[in-house]
């Protein structure tokens, strides 16, 4: 021991592992979520006078309670939030499976919503209701698809970087909406809700159509990716373009086709927001959910059904923490912080699932 050593022995080193069974992995994930929720409670304890339990109680009320004025249960609002976020995440998933990093759900949805808005304003009084609805659906999907196609064509032909390209397309979309709102809103910069071309209400519930549409889409995307020839091509292109070439898949065609679908599904989300929810549009209509959706798609491991749970979790935290912020007079950024903490923990726990940390304690005894 007296001899000079070049180095001390490391306290621990990190080793890759692949021995975790799926239920163990999920146990780690669930434990992480529980821990991160406690972290969040601790944070609110530090910022407010409320105890942990009270905080959770407020959160619960924020999601499952009743709005004081009406009879609408908050639950519907919760499901609506899930539907929109899930719709965007579903839209991104085919592109992501192809390893085409579409960061433009925000813009694609906004343009889709924009198409709905134009139809509602310009054609709302001339077309009959069913025709109008069909026109709205088709145009918003086409508009979203177009917004997705532009970067896809450039990627296919010139191999441009799709991440930057789709991000930039978001800003263009936002500016177009800003200008449109300025034109139509007169001085107020607000477009008053339009009565024509709203999606139908079922049993007096204004969110139910949105929820049903997204439920159908979830099944559609799942089946499309897993059981269709298109879905198979997407996986092959995503895993290895060389293999795709070798087998004779037209890679350019697949990129363009898939982005058209991804964009069109974003367009649907835009339609659900404009024709189905707000009946108006502004630059903040999608409100950054296009970016949250990227995370949802990843955390859901590109599986639509896992994505349902992830959106459920994120929306619960967002609504609940929003309510806490309201009740305790905290800044509205509180909700973002909470969602951030939880997602960071969830992403971090993937490290523990893939690697294990080895300590060197036992070694000295082995030597003897």
């Amino acid at each position, binding site marked *: 021991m007296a001899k000079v*050593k070049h*180095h001390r022995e490391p306290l621990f080193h990190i080793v890759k592992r692949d021995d975790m069974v799926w239920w163990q992995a999920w146990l780690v994930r669930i434990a992480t979520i529980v821990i991160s929720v406690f972290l969040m409670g601790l944070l609110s304890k530090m910022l407010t006078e409320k105890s942990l339990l009270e905080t959770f109680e407020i959160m619960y009320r924020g999601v499952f309670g009743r709005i004081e004025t009406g009879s609408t249960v908050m639950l519907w609002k919760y499901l609506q939030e899930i539907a929109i976020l899930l719709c965007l995440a579903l839209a991104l998933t085919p592109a992501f499976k192809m390893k085409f990093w579409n960061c433009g759900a925000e813009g694609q949805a906004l343009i889709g919503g924009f198409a709905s808005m134009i139809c509602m304003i310009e054609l709302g009084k001339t077309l009959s209701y069913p025709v109008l609805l069909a026109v709205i659906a088709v145009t918003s999907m086409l508009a979203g698809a177009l917004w997705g196609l532009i970067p896809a064509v450039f990627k296919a032909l010139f191999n441009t970087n799709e991440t930057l390209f789709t991000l930039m397309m978001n800003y263009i979309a936002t500016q177009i909406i800003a200008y449109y709102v300025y034109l139509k809103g007169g001085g107020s910069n607000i477009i008053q809700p339009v009565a024509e071309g709203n999606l139908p209400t079922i049993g007096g519930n204004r969110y139910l159509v949105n929820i049903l549409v997204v439920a159908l889409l979830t099944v559609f995307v799942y089946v499309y990716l897993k*059981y269709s020839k*298109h879905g198979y091509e997407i996986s092959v292109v995503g895993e*290895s373009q060389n*293999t795709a070439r*070798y087998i004779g898949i037209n890679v350019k065609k697949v990129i363009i086709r898939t982005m058209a679908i991804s964009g069109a599904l974003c367009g649907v989300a835009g339609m659900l927001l404009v024709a189905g929810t707000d009946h108006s549009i502004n630059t903040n209509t999608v409100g950054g959910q296009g970016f949250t959706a990227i995370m949802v798609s990843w955390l859901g491991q590109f599986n639509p059904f896992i994505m349902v749970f992830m959106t459920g979790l994120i929306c619960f935290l967002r609504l609940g923490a929003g309510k806490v912020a309201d009740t305790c007079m905290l800044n509205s950024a509180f909700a973002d912080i909470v969602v951030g903490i939880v997602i960071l923990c969830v992403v971090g726990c993937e490290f523990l699932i893939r690697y294990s940390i080895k300590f060197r304690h036992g070694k000295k005894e082995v030597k003897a």
Partner: protein
Amino acid sequence: MEKKPAIELKNITKRFGARVIANKNVNLTAYRGEILSILGENGSGKTTLMNMISGIYFPDEGQIFVDGEEAVILSPKDAFSYRIGMIHQHFKLVDVFSAAENIVLGIEDGKYNLKNSIKDITAISEQYGFDIQPEKKIYSMSVSEKQTVEIIKVLYRGADILILDEPTAVLTPQETEKLFNILRNMRDDGKCIIIITHKLHEVLSLSDRVAVLRKGEYVGTVNTAETNESELTEMMVGKKVELNIHRSEPKNSVDRLQVNGLTCVDRQGATVLDDVSFTAKSGEILGIAGIAGSGQRELLEAIAGLQHLSNGEITYINPNDGKLENLRDKTPVQIRDMGVRLSFVPEDRLGMGLVGNMDIVDNMLLRSYTKGKSIFLQRKAPKDLAMKIIKDLEVVTPGANTPVRRLSGGNVQKVLVGREIAASPTVLMVAYPVRGLDINSSYTIYNLLNEQKEKGVAIIFVGEDLDVLVELCDRIMVIGSGRITGVVDARTTTKEEIGLLMTKSKEDGKETANG
């Protein structure tokens, strides 16, 4: 004669995940003034073991002693402080730098002076007999020159324990002999040389002692002088292995594929194939030999419809009606639709032939998913095929739904070759089909190729091991810098003759430069 131990390994264990034990309780000693071969099949843990000495990995258990003292090696830098240097299989050089710049790169002694360094480099070169131009840029160097730079880089840092990972894999027989002479010089200078290899004849001709690993476990060390090929093979594989490749005479051989004046230019504008012409015959294995990167890949890809040609003709002679079909500028799908049964086992198995993250069934689907009008996939037939291949070729896998990247190299290759043969091809192209495979899997593949040959398939076999090419093929075509430098009869040729042909075009170039 008492030799001083340079490096000792005691009870070294390294795991990757819970299931993979790369090394288990390895005990090994290497002395100064000797060349020690580490022999083992692919996947036996040779490289992992050496990576622990050179600081790339850290052992989970056990100790390393350098010159009798326990050493903790956490990084390649630590390894250098123990005077240990490793020359990796894949070179780690900066292409746009000169040899000398690469050699001094990363030395932090605050005395950057390229002129002095070049003097030192020249001195080292002369001492051991290296042939190097210190100011030459890496990108204009041959593989053998690059390897020289890597070795000098290590010597320049004062290493006297040198580890070479499969150094001859990319060399011609002549270059190999040159390298071996240099290594012998270094040994005589008192350095400790450890060479990782799986080629038996190299072990026997070069090393003083051989340490054998099998499935991560240390089997034993023997003196080279007291052993022979079959004993070493037995230690390596764990049982006796017949080392002869069966070769039948071609029967009813007719022309199947004619290639005429093939010329191909890569993205940088360099000519990778230059006026290549040959004929592949049915019921015959045509070998293609050459230094890695001489245009073999481009040639096969051109025939498979994956490479754009600037000139030349590819003609397929249909065995049913003798009709001539032009394959040039056709996509793989078009070739398939023409009824040409062309199968291709590419060099890059998991990056091109298969999809690593997909299971065996979905990898079978690659060749057949377009069948049928339905928009949905039909997984029944590929599932049956997967089960059949697993059974017939004895693929070791937990099931047909295991991602192929989890299989060992040999099993991956069985899946790929099995799929390509299942299409009952008339032309079968295989590139480096046994690279990275253990001996038993290699022989399985040779037998499969021979079976196909006897069925009348025209086989084009791109290989690197000249011993195998000479034993397996009927004719061998040698390619050098994109040109055919000769076609020889495999039954009468020698390795030396092929080695000379491999470098022939280079020599031609030198002559013109001199004249």
